[in-house]
């Protein structure tokens, strides 16, 4: 019943540093009310995996706040379903690694103690998809695989590219998740003290002759969020009916910490078109092709186009925003104009007053 463990890890946040001053990459807000980690975490929960470790990293405040006891994901405190795993002190994630096993060292006991676990699923925290792990797990177990690698399908991979073309690839495709038998991970953790390799992917490559490795391809939507333009595009993808349907209207729910807000109020004179709008907003202006997060206020005469507003934006009157990303709690004064471009949106950091 509890044979599979999931581990979600932080990624190198170089391309997203404007967002990660006070939070880890896993808790960057996304899609009006979600955080990036909601996607990998819901993927695990939807496959009935009830033993999950989340690497917390150094900036863990927002992660603790977001996950709570895991209640919103039907994870239970009593049966110890969800653990936030502290990273090594003074450790920071390196670029170019798929998954640095050294991060797991302080949590060795967490893995050791759960002796009934047979296999571990590793997922990064900065990936938007709605994966169905059930058939993937079946293939892993039925095929008696040591390692199963889940990749995206090539086309999307080529389309988005990644800052470092060499990392997170397998047979030329981007890796979405890796499933490894627990015994192999335990061995790797033991050997690390003796100077063994510590990147999960290198470790697999190096031992590929001795291992039964299979690759499976996810045919659906996915995006890796590793820089601002990827973040911007993934948000705007939600305006596509097919993407919304696959992510949010299918059989597998994406869970998140929900907020008890008043419904969004539209005033006389508001005009809204092709927009994804969360609860608790007060809207008097014009919004087009945009994502508006919870509790945002948009003044009269204001025009917002092709933009992403995170929570609690306070936008005055007669403002004009185009190709803009506002981090949480940004205030924009009356009559301000901000214009970026599709490839280089303007980014305003958390709490700014413009």
């Amino acid at each position: 019943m509890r044979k599979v463990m999931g581990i979600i890890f932080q990624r190198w946040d170089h391309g997203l540093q404007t967002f990660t001053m006070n939070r880890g990459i896993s808790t960057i807000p996304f899609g009006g009310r979600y955080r990036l980690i909601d996607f990998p975490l819901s993927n695990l929960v939807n496959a009935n995996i009830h033993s999950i470790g989340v690497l917390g990293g150094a900036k863990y405040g927002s992660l603790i706040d977001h996950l709570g006891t895991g209640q919103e994901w039907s994870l239970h405190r009593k049966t110890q379903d969800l653990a936030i795993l502290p990273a090594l002190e003074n450790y920071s994630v390196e670029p170019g690694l798929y998954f640095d096993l050294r991060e797991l060292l302080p949590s060795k006991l967490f893995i050791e103690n759960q002796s009934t676990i047979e296999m571990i699923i590793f997922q990064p925290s900065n990936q938007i998809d709605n994966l169905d792990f059930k058939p993937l797990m079946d293939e892993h177990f039925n095929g008696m695989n040591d390692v199963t690698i889940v990749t995206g399908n090539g086309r999307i991979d080529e389309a988005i590219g990644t800052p470092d073309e060499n990392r997170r690839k397998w047979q030329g495709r981007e890796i979405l998740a890796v499933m490894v038998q627990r015994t192999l991970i335990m061995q790797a953790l033991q050997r690390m003290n003796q100077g063994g390799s510590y990147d999960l992917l290198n470790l697999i490559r190096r031992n590929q002759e001795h291992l039964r490795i299979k690759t499976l391809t996810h045919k659906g939507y996915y995006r890796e969020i590793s820089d601002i333009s990827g973040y911007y595009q993934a948000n705007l993808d939600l305006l596509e009916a097919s993407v919304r349907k696959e992510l949010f209207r299918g059989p597998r729910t994406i869970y998140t910490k929900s907020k008890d807000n008043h419904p969004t109020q539209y005033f006389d004179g508001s005009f809204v078109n092709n927009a994804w709008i969360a609860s608790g907003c007060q809207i008097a202006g014009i919004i087009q092709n945009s994502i508006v997060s919870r509790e945002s206020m948009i003044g009269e005469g204001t025009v917002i186009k092709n933009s992403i507003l995170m929570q609690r934006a306070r936008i005055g009157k007669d403002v004009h925003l185009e190709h803009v990303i506002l981090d949480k709690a940004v205030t924009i004064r009356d009559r301000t104009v901000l214009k970026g471009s599709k490839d280089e949106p303007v980014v305003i950091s958390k709490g700014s007053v413009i």
Partner: protein
Amino acid sequence: MKKKCVAMLLAGGQGSRLGVLTKSIAKPAVLFGGKYRLIDFSLSNCYHSNIGIVGVLTQYQPLELNSYISTGSAWSLDNVGGGVTILPPYQNRYGASWYRGTADAIYQNLYFLQSYDPEHVLIISGDHIYKMDYSEMLNNHIKNHADLTIGGLLVEPEEASRFGIMNTDGENRILEFEEKPEYPKGNLASMGIYIFRWSVLKRLLKEDGAKEESQHDFGKNVIPESLAQGLDVFAYPFMGYWRDVGTIQSYYDAQMELLLQTPPLNLFDKDFRIYSNHESLPPHFISNDATVTDSLISDGCLICGEVKHSILSSSVIVEKGAIVENSILLKNVKVGKNARVRHSILDEGVVILTDEEVGSADQSVQLIGKEEQDA
């Protein structure tokens, strides 16, 4: 453990004047303002008043209400050694009996109150729309050394005969209480909010329970009896916003007030928030073909048509070309292509077909339920 004040919330009412809305749920579970249920107001008031123990008396169609209230955590009322306790009618070794009236409901749960042995008991109901800090009323009650304090509201003189009317002296001492008088002498109406000294309440309910001719109702029996016994009974005048939404028209009007530029009831207010046990749903989406103005839209809605001066609960779908005006659409309503909905309340799950028209601006508000549709 002894407590200062424990609240008892009467949530057993059917609210039959709300028609299909209360066919399968109790009145306190009826939706309001897109996402709230009527009981949210009383429970949020308890939180803001620092009342940590609330007994909720249920009887009529309690399933949805019970699971909605759950442990009270949505209103931060799930305290260790207290919190919300749901009190349905029950069977004991002497037999089983339903609640025969508001007073009987409390009477049958005296043992619950006894287990906390409070100094005072606050009795409220779960179907009014208002924000009130009960602790101010409690302080007033204590200051007056009252046996009973009744929350009172000034109503329009022509409405007074719908209420229990309290005639008071200059210090708010109640001299006379008339339940729905034909010729009211005043217009200070009882809000159905009572604070009793616990020792007095216990005695009154035991006496009332023994009387065969009693209807076991606070307004009809217990309050008049308190005055007859010469107890110290005071009114506590409440000046804020308060609405009874017991009829279709008042239910409609109270919600439409939320759409005013400055609504009399501000639900965006952060200092006295009304909490609810909300569902977790994606944001709503407004398509390229849509127009939305002067409206409240909840999570999970998909709007492809025109929505004007209306309130949409969660997961409502308005298809292309459809028009929704001056209407209240409850959860999971679907309005088909080119359909037209005016001046109507659509109950949960109602489906309006392509090109269908319901309601008109001239008529009184129309309430449409699923059953009417199937018939």
